[in-house]
């Protein structure tokens, strides 16, 4: 599962911490079905109205879940992710930034053995406006997210938030927001996310928000070349100096690899319109809907 649905039962690992508590409340307010939490030191207690277990495996036995979301510091992330994977989570959303690369590799390998979908690491989460969200996105903010037909993919949470805000202001609601993460080794790639939205019946057009570094936008361009749904892209980092990690561990240009120009060229060759600034995106979608058009906000049947 990449696109969040309200039917998904969610386990919050690290639910009792400050951020875990704050965002679990926000998720619940938004309609997300949080069924349990994990904290080995608070097992047996209840927190925010749901039971707390020592491990994801223990939670699965009594409060079955589909999705695990991790509010876990980097040094403990490997253990927590493996626990969720072995417990049988269908999807694990890893918010944690700065997990050691060797631990990330171990997580991805365990996930592929168990058939688990990993979103992240270093993702802000996934949002389906009108249904709920998993992660640390302002899914509860109706100025930013409105139900609609545009699928949004973003490596960055803050930039993804801005893009959704612009869409909502233009009267273009979203079918799903897929935060895939700013790390160099992520479980759900830009291409995976693009395919999921291409196959999603509620999505009519897609905004692909990329970043310099790596080759994920190029791989997504290969897929986009065969799509009939319109895809509009914005790639962050055009004005960034080469050879420097721009905040995200994945956002670095080495030589010509990972460059803005290479990504833009690949996307444009695949028929994707590439915006120069985020504000251009709603217009490039070519759906001809403005803020005044109430039909644009209508939920698809």
């Amino acid at each position, binding site marked *: 599962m990449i696109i969040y649905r309200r039917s998904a039962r969610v386990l919050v690992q690290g639910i009792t911490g400050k*951020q875990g508590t704050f965002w679990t409340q926000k998720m619940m307010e938004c309609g997300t079905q949080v069924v349990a939490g994990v904290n080995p030191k608070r097992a047996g207690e209840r927190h925010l109205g749901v039971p707390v277990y020592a491990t994801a495996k223990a939670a699965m036995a009594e409060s079955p879940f589909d999705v695990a979301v991790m509010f876990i510091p*980097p*040094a403990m992330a490997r253990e927590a992710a493996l626990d969720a994977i072995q417990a049988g989570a269908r999807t694990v959303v890893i918010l944690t*930034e*700065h*997990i*050691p*690369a*060797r631990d*990330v*590799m*171990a997580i*991805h*390998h365990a996930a592929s053995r168990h058939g688990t979908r990993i979103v992240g690491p270093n993702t*802000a989460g996934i949002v389906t406006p009108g249904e709920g969200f998993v992660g*640390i*996105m*302002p899914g509860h*903010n109706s*100025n*930013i997210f409105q139900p609609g037909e545009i699928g949004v993919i*973003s*490596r*960055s*949470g*803050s*930039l*993804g*938030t*801005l893009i959704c*805000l612009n869409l909502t202001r233009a009267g273009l609601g979203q079918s799903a927001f897929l935060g895939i993460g*700013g790390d*160099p*080794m992520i479980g759900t790639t830009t291409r995976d996310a693009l395919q999921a939205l291409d196959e999603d019946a509620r999505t009519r057009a897609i905004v692909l*928000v990329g*970043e*310099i570094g*790596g*080759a994920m936008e190029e791989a997504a361009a290969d897929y986009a070349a065969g799509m009939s749904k319109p895809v509009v892209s*914005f790639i*962050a*980092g*055009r*004005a*960034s*100096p080469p050879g*420097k*990690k*721009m*905040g*995200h*561990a*994945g*956002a670095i240009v080495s030589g010509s690899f990972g460059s803005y120009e290479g990504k833009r060229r690949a996307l444009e060759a695949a028929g994707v319109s590439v915006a*120069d*600034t*985020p*504000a251009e995106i709603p217009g490039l979608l070519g759906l001809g809907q403005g803020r005044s058009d109430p039909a644009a906000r209508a939920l698809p049947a």
Partner: protein
Amino acid sequence: MNFLEHAAKARVLAPAGIPVPRAVLCRNPEEAVAAFAELGPCMVKAQVPTGKRGKAGGIKPANTAEEARSVAERILGMAIDGHAVGAVLLEEQARIVREFYAAVLIDTASRCPLVLFSTEGGMDIEEVAATQPDALRRHRVEPEAGFDATAARALLSGLDLGGAEGAVADIVASLYETSGRVDAELIEINPLAVLADGRVVALDCKLTLDDSAAFRQAELAGEAAEEPMTDLEREGAANGLKFIQLDGDVGVLANGAGLTMTTMDVISHCGGRPANFLEIGGEAYTKSEAALKLVLSNPGVKSLVVNFCGAFARTDVMAEGVVAAWKRLDPDIPVFFSIHGTGEDEAVRLVREGLGCEPFDLMEDAVQAAVDAAHSAASRGAAR
């Protein structure tokens, strides 16, 4: 983080049982003379974290004590690829028969460690891949399978290593084991030399450690080469802020890497030049006051754009820090805000009441105003 050759060899290769030449690290010509007495004829090698040492004249032989002094003195006065040479490594001279290449790196696309070996050492590996693909072997290691000396032999089979097959296989297997143990992103021996006496020795080593693993490699991480940073960048790092100083005049303060890069892009799209990269997203969103001080300390800054789009980061917390710091610092430059997302109502109120500033609805408009202000400040400066 990167390591100098001497640290990589002495702290990582040698403890892993990978042979390295006898060597002494010297910080001045006198130490070089003493090292020569111990080593005899040797190579004097500049210790800088860049691969362009040889071509830049940073590696020279010394056959007498007097030569060791003069060569060390000359190399210690050099700057190579922007790095001042702070030390030289004096290393026993080796009679080289063959040069190979061996490396282990993290292949992000396959999410696996990748072992590389080439019979053409001393060359850039990308060049070998392009011009002599038959000389290059690569093996993606499935974490469960591991990579031992038997696997290394299989990787090398069919290559003519002139009888050094066994020694090389052991070294490649040790290199793999070590790369995992020290959380290396890249560990590269180039060249891996076969000497006239039959020994196989690592003549140079490049090591990059995974920054995210520094917490569990504390001892080794403490010996990493100092990153080339400006004073302000160093100050940022000390405060846990990722600050990159640029040569433009529009200061940037935004939350999250993606939004910060985008703010820089829009500045450049509007005809301006960003003065810095600085993000206060993630856990750093409470540090907006320290961040603002940093941006304003950059002497090139003529205007400032503050672009917040709160998801995880709360714009009200960030705005509170910025308003407080702005009042305290009272800078003489114009500032332009755009604020959306988590906490925006409170954040807008704080900026409006605290600074008498009305945030722009569109970040593009805030950026354009900041670029225009920087331009007119620059032309005022020119007129004076």
